[in-house]
């Protein structure tokens, strides 16, 4: 909770480094480094790359995304809500006889219910993804680094947050160096920089 409040500026963050950032040479070294961090027992770390890297989920041992369940629920809500709307409109609130069809004419109601299923699923996928990724989030320790702008160009980074139980201001940068990290820097807010 404190973490979220800090990130949107409602709570003054504690002093000191918020994390550490190390740059790697390319997708291969990044993948190897992420695997080592996982094996070492780090939990609050992330590997940043300009495009998704094949095999990284396994290297970091991430559990599969649960987004599918969110989408399934949203699709059911969309489709079910659509059918309910059609039933209420055509059979309850405004029943009109049209070419002798029943008030609740299911075959004719399928197209709209189908489209609303898709609409629900799409909203579920997009907003569910934002929720899982905590986006939009304009403030994050990695942005303290001036080098981090390369991430959307050709930079490959590993970040470890200071909230990780294994984090240490002295040992973690050394460890990153030993597994091939370059340009290692501690992430300090701009106003704390010397």
């Amino acid at each position, binding site marked *: 909770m404190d973490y979220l409040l800090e990130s949107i500026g409602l709570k003054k963050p504690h002093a000191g480094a918020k994390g550490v950032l190390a740059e790697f040479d*390319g*997708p*291969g070294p*990044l*993948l190897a480094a*992420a695997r080592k961090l996982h094996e070492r027992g780090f939990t609050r770390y*992330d*590997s*940043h*790359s*300009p*495009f*998704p*890297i*094949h*095999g*990284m*989920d396994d290297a*970091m041992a*991430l559990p599969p*995304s649960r*987004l*599918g369940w969110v*989408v399934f629920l949203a699709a059911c809500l969309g489709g079910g809500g659509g059918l309910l709307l059609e039933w209420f*409109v*055509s059979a309850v609130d*405004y029943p009109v006889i*049209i*070419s002798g069809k029943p008030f609740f*004419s299911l075959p*004719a*109601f399928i*197209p*709209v219910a*189908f*489209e*609303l299923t*898709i*609409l629900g699923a*799409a909203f579920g*996928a*997009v907003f*569910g*993804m*934002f929720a*899982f*990724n905590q*986006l*939009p*989030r*304009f*403030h*994050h320790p990695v*942005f303290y680094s001036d080098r*981090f702008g390369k*991430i*959307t*160009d*050709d930079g490959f980074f590993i*970040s470890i947050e200071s909230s990780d139980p294994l984090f240490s201001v002295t040992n973690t940068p050394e460890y990153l160096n030993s597994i091939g990290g370059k340009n290692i820097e501690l992430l300090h807010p701009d106003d704390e920089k010397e």
Partner: protein
Amino acid sequence: MSAIKELNTQLEPLVTGNPTFASVTQRISELTEGKQPNKGWWVCFLAALGLLFMMKTLILYLIWEGTGIWGLNNPVGWGWAIVNFVWWVGIGHAGTLISAILFLFRQKWRTSINRFAEAMTIFAVMCALVFPGIHIGRVWVAYWMFPLPNQMQMWPNFRSPLLWDVFAVGTYFTVSCLFWFVGLIPDLATLRDRSTGKIRRFIYGFFAFGWRGGNRQWQHYEKAYLILAGISTPLVLSVHTVVSFDFAVSIVPGWHTTIFPPYFVAGAVFSGFAMVMTLGIIARKIYHLEDFITLRHLETMNKVMLLTGMLVGYAYGCEFFVAAYSGNIYETAIFINRAFGPYAWAYWTMIFCNVVVPQAFWWKKARRCIPWMFVASILINIGMWFERFVITVTSLAQDYLPSSWDYFRPTIFDIGIFVGSFGLFFTFFLLFLRFLPAIAISEVKGVLPQANPHHGGEH
């Protein structure tokens, strides 16, 4: 496995010129940065803006005066407005096909063209939505199409295909925008990180949502992208199916047929690919994107056009066979009239453009000849417009009672609003080319050989 490997090495590379990650970023981002280097852009933009203004003026006059200013007459109640609507929606479908269906089939060549094809989809659907919107006549009650509680205590009729269409095209537009935006997020972050000005940084930064490319984000992002592709596929098929229901559900000779949904979908993909081709050839020429949109891409698209053109040609033949085989005199008469009646000129234009022209793509030379494919793509779109014209107008102009037959002639307002819709389309399209990355930067990087973590080493 080794056979596949061998095949892959034989294929031309997806991106030529041996680019690095940085050169891909630079090459695509620079088109949106600095002063507009291309004078042609300004000429096109001002022309498009002029056409858009003309369309707006004509629509205002239409609202003031009523749909009587169009060439509609007593049997032909659906004229150019419906033809244009179906045509524009159909064009949009190629964008979704490229971004969704080719994604599901792991067709990596799509990465160079999917971004601007998706943009084309959104702007084409915007053009399409204008036409039924103004065709209803009393535009100030357009909200009656939506199930909103109102003071009349009335609700729309959910058994009507026209209402299905409202939901189908509305959903299609919304989902296309969402899909497009999700795809744009990493590239907007690229523009954010490259921007020097404060305003630019703020705007791109705002829409990039604070993207930081962490794998914990990519994981959900890729899942969302896959799901969006998965649901867009049935969606795009359903949209043109529902559009065809507008015709097929009514009991009009030439419309009341079960072949319409697949026939319309094939035609939509056909015309959409032709439009992607037209726009792609222009964009790669003026922005020198030959390394990204290679001859291999163009050739593959030509193959898709050959296939869908044959499907459409098959449907034309099938319609005639069913009309003859049904023994229904009205059905038979309408098809004889199509080919040999007063609209024969439109019918044979359609056959020439849609069935004859794409046959050239059987030859590799034609598939790789840019001037020819440019001309062919434009002819195909003309042909597909005439297809909708033939379907809509010939069936209405000569229906059951010969005493009510009439001939449809467009007025200057029909033509003006249709031509103006290109202004709407190109205004947005040119703004898109100027301010957003026209090629998906992060996706192109992902298909470069060095993006594979096992590239060049024994890991």
